[in-house]
């Protein structure tokens, strides 16, 4: 719509309606988050009251957060989630980075066949190998270890594709010049390609972090002991289906778990939006 459109009253009405709908959408996005926050501050009876209240009316009970914090060992689960995330990121950048670099910049013969080997896996539905993947890990004795996450993370054709496309966009001449100056291939990768790949590595980091933070089902299958559960699985096992846990404390825990990603997102949102553009639409 242009300036001239807005002169016509019917278009102004249309714009008003659009604005209203979008504003409603934004409110509906924010409402659940605010509800979680306010419910964390109520007494259990108030949360259970019908019709439900929005802002706490029976006092603001900050002690709920302390009770929620102590209900399950949040720091340990957080540590597990971060361990999974860091390991996944390292494996991705090192293993898939080297492979993408080789396919993109090193003129390996039969590279098309090798690419096929990697990329055909994208066409196989995950449901087909969900359970066999678990059986395979069991056969290899990797159940209940963190390697059960890190190693399959290196088998992501999607991440490989992102890295390869990015490396393709780097100029070959740079690497030719470096090779002529005597740099080994390892140096080309480590001191030339990797520093230039910060944009795509950040994008990957965002995807991998989101994956690690959200994944609750696979860890519940692969891990057996409490010590090793990541945060999402712990929430699933102990909070969602918990009996005898007051709703207000449940909301307190949920809100505390919700807060770090939101804070990280809001502070980094500019980079994240840019990263999504990089990984999504081309040109």
């Amino acid at each position, binding site marked *: 719509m242009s300036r001239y459109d807005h002169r016509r009253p019917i278009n102004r009405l249309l714009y008003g309606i659009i604005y209203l709908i979008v504003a409603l959408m934004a409110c509906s996005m924010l409402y659940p988050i605010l509800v979680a926050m306010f419910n964390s501050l109520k007494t259990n009876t108030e949360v259970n009251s019908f019709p439900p209240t929005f802002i706490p009316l029976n006092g603001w009970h900050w002690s709920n957060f302390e009770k929620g914090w102590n209900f399950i060992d949040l720091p340990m689960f957080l540590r597990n989630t971060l361990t999974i995330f860091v390991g996944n990121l390292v494996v991705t950048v090192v293993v898939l980075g080297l492979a993408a670099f080789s396919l993109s910049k090193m003129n390996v013969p039969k590279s098309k066949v090798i690419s096929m080997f990697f990329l055909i*896996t994208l066409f196989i539905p995950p449901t087909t190998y969900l359970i066999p993947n678990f059986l395979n890990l069991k056969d290899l004795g990797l159940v209940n270890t963190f390697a059960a996450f890190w190693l399959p993370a290196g088998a992501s054709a999607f991440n490989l594709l992102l890295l390869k496309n990015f490396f393709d966009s780097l100029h070959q001449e740079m690497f030719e010049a470096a090779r002529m100056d005597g740099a080994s291939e390892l140096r080309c990768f480590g001191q030339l390609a990797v520093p230039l790949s910060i944009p795509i590595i950040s994008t990957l980091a965002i995807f991998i972090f989101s994956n690690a933070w959200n994944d609750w089902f696979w860890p519940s299958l692969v891990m057996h002991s409490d010590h090793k559960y990541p945060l999402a699985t712990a929430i699933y096992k102990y909070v969602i289906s918990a009996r005898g846990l007051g709703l207000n404390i449940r909301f307190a825990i949920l809100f505390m778990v919700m807060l770090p990603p*939101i804070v990280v997102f809001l502070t980094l949102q500019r980079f994240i939006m840019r990263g999504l553009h990089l990984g999504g639409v081309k040109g």
Partner: protein
Amino acid sequence: MSHSALPIQPSETNQTRRTGIVQILRKHLWGYLFLLPALLLFAIFLWLPIIKGFVYSFYYIDFVKGNTFVGWDNYKTVFDDPNVGKSIYNTLYYMGLALVMGFWVPIVFSIAISEIRRFQGFFRVAAYLPNVIPVVVLYGLWRWFYDSVGPINAGITKTFGGEGIAFMTDTSWSMISIVFMETWQQFGSAMLLYLAAVLSIPRDWYEAAEIDGAGVWMRIRHITLPSVKGLIVLMLLLQLIGTSQGFQAQLAMLDGGPNNATLTYALLIVKYATTRLELGVASAMGVLMFIVLGVLAILQFRLQNKGDN
């Protein structure tokens, strides 16, 4: 005898063959070395499970006593189980609902937000915010929202009276509730992709159309939508593939209930593996899905080629 000013080059036979495998390996040593870790990981953690899936579908898996070969028994179990038919129906229903309720939302909102002049950034962030929240937290939140004494029902009973809707325990509402929740959570990321595409359409086209007398709606129909057609097709494909594998929300929120109303195909596979401990049958179901999707992909490929001809 020939004299030459230049020293005579050693003949070909004094050197090893230039085209042997060893030579290729030596020349591209680093290339292959870099590929090696990824090749190993893909082979061991992706291809091996896939092959094992096919193999194990013919076995009865027992972790204690060892696996026994059972031939086609697992497949027979699959075809005899009435739950399988229900799960296929549920999965198709889920995919259809996701299309009807959720596919157009990001497109419409991306066009709407592209028109917004003030606070566009704020709305973009607000739309993406639910995507940032861990899924499990959302399950907990929406369980409360959908509760018969929750806020949604409070609103409904206040405005319409009556008993309210049992979003989670009513078989007809349960899948719809899940799709609504997932649309709410996920439309932000698709919307951002569409928004990027819509914002990259050159302004001149709109101005030219406007000068020619096209109204707002005509401009959207003839400029905006055709320009994002490629993206729409891609997202449609991705959504269909994704929803066909859906099971996590159904498992966490309702455990396939009420009365198997939300039991999707993937969820049934999971249940066969985890609660019934019949991993061979679970593998067989996975193989069947692979075959069905593979056939569909080939059909679609053939249709496309015929269309080009």
